[in-house]
């Protein structure tokens, strides 16, 4: 356990010093990666902990992005915009959750997908939100930290806002996953009938889980608009809902750190295939190979590998010991 903590601190330090050592284009990419990690982590909270496969997660992401875009344009400070974006996404998640939680399994997945599509079409057709063209020119106001001003309209400075928000959010999600709420949700996932017979209000807990997931999905989206400077309805397209699913799968669905590893791997593949003219085709091939050959994702495979190496090392050592015995 101490090793994991040291590793986490080391990774955090790497993220922290990255913008000082690398160029601005790299920092911009890293910002996008951090947002993707939070987006996937917020999805994983309902998918893995609560066992609810929502296929409409982009709705919360997009609502968060639009809320922060509007608030920032009105001159609100960045952290207030992020918080309110999360709250807006939470409210919408409660409406969608109320409508969808009557059904389970694949019906639940299809309902979330459809309602997310409704949100997408509404935003797409609202001219006050820029319609198809979206909202351009989103510039964050300078951040005032105890009298010291930081110009966060520059991506290399805004990076720290993202880093802070994402790490705080992941910490909260980690805490919630391992709290009694997380345990209740896991027992609901395993057997909702038995759990409800224990006197636990299943639907209430599912609504709470859906809300938490929606909130952090919204937070992830809210970080996106000041980074890109423009927000379009494409942020809510349903292919966008598949993104966290893919990332979590590539990373490893059964591990809390799946989204982090998955986002990294996904981003590397994305960079490699970017200029091929058919990035989707390669993404599809990678995804198919993952599903067919490595269903436990990168983390699962690396765990298998390390245990294999350990085993072979052990057998080597015992082999030597036997040799020595033989000599003696």
């Amino acid at each position, binding site marked *: 356990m101490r090793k994991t903590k040291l590793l986490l601190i080391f990774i955090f330090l790497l993220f922290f010093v990255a913008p000082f050592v690398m160029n601005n284009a790299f920092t911009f990419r890293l910002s996008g990666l951090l947002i993707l990690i939070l987006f996937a982590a917020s999805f994983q909270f309902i998918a893995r902990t609560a066992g609810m496969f929502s296929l409409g997660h982009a709705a919360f992401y997009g609502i968060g992005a639009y809320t922060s875009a509007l608030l920032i344009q009105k001159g609100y400070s960045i952290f207030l915009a992020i918080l309110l974006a999360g709250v807006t996404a939470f409210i919408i998640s409660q409406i969608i959750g109320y*409508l969808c939680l009557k059904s389970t399994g*694949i*019906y639940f997945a299809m309902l979330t997908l459809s*309602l997310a599509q*409704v949100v997408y*079409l509404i935003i797409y057709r609202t001219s006050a939100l820029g319609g198809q063209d979206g909202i351009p020119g989103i510039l964050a106001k300078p951040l005032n930290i105890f009298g010291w001003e930081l110009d966060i309209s520059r991506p290399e400075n805004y990076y720290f806002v993202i880093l802070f928000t994402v790490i705080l959010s992941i910490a909260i999600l980690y805490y919630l996953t391992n709290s009694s709420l997380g345990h209740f949700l896991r027992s609901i996932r395993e057997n909702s009938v038995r759990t409800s017979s224990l006197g636990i209000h299943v639907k209430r807990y599912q609504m709470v889980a859906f809300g938490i997931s929606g909130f952090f999905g919204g937070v992830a989206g809210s970080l996106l608009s000041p980074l890109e400077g423009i927000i379009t309805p494409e942020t809510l397209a349903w292919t966008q809902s*598949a993104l966290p699913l*893919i990332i979590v799968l590539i990373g490893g669905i059964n591990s809390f750190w799946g989204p982090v590893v998955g986002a990294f791997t996904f981003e590397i593949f994305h960079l490699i295939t970017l200029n091929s003219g*058919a990035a989707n085709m390669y993404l599809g091939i990678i995804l198919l190979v993952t599903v067919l050959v490595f*269903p436990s994702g990168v983390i699962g495979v690396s765990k298998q590998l390390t245990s294999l190496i350990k085993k072979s090392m052990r057998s080597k050592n015992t082999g030597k010991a036997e040799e020595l015995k033989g000599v003696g």
Partner: protein
Amino acid sequence: MDVVLLPLVNGLTQAAVLFMIAAGLTLIYGVLHVINFAHGSFVMLGSYLTMFFFVGKFETVTGLFLFIFVSSIIIALIGWAMEVFVLRKMYKADEFYMVLATYAILLMIEGGVEKYWGSSPLSLPLPASLNTTISILGISVPLFSILICVIGLAVMFLLWYMMNHTNLGKIIRAAAADQTMTNSLGVNVPALFTVVFIIGIFLAAFAGGLLAPTVALLPNMGVNIVIQAFVVVVVGGLGNINGALIAAVLIGVLDSFLGFYVPVLTGITFYIVMAIILMIRPQGLLGKA
């Protein structure tokens, strides 16, 4: 009269195409228990392949229908490969992995089409003799729309006949009800899965070919189609062909009428109808509870 007839014909045309797509989707779900996200990509591929054979080479009425048919057969063969090399390895896995596998195939087909045909919209012009209108009750209605409705009816009849009056249909219904039992009665269930999948994909590609002259061809068109088809399938009750028919007509016509009078609602009606129906009947119109 035209304010009623035109949206009605449009709605029925939309319903006919939707039914063909949704019937395959629901058949595949009913028997194989696969949510085939790639279904819309096969529709899209049907449109592109028909366009590829037809445009600039055989631009006649016979050519159009011949190549819709030929394309559908080629695409059904691709579906065959997909069932054998991908789906068959996953029937025991979690539904979630199946969704991802079919989604991966969607991405591969979409990316492949984009690489080969590019991402700008293409079109398939109707042969002149089909590109006319006929007069019904004094209102001119596009001939091709009527033709799609007629073909939709024919497909519906063929499916109904196959499911109710042929051995294959009986076996399919038996397998949908109880796989283990059907297997122990001596039916080769894995082979049946392949046959059902091929029929489903053929229907999707055929619908795509019929759709081609009426829309702009884009690599990502399959994505929207598959969601609409899912809505129809879920509203009708997963795995139920009759339900898919009722839902396709209901949703197609409602969407067309609302879109005609309140244009901003076009496409949204789909989801609103779905949400309302599922709140009243979570298992869909004809689905089992």
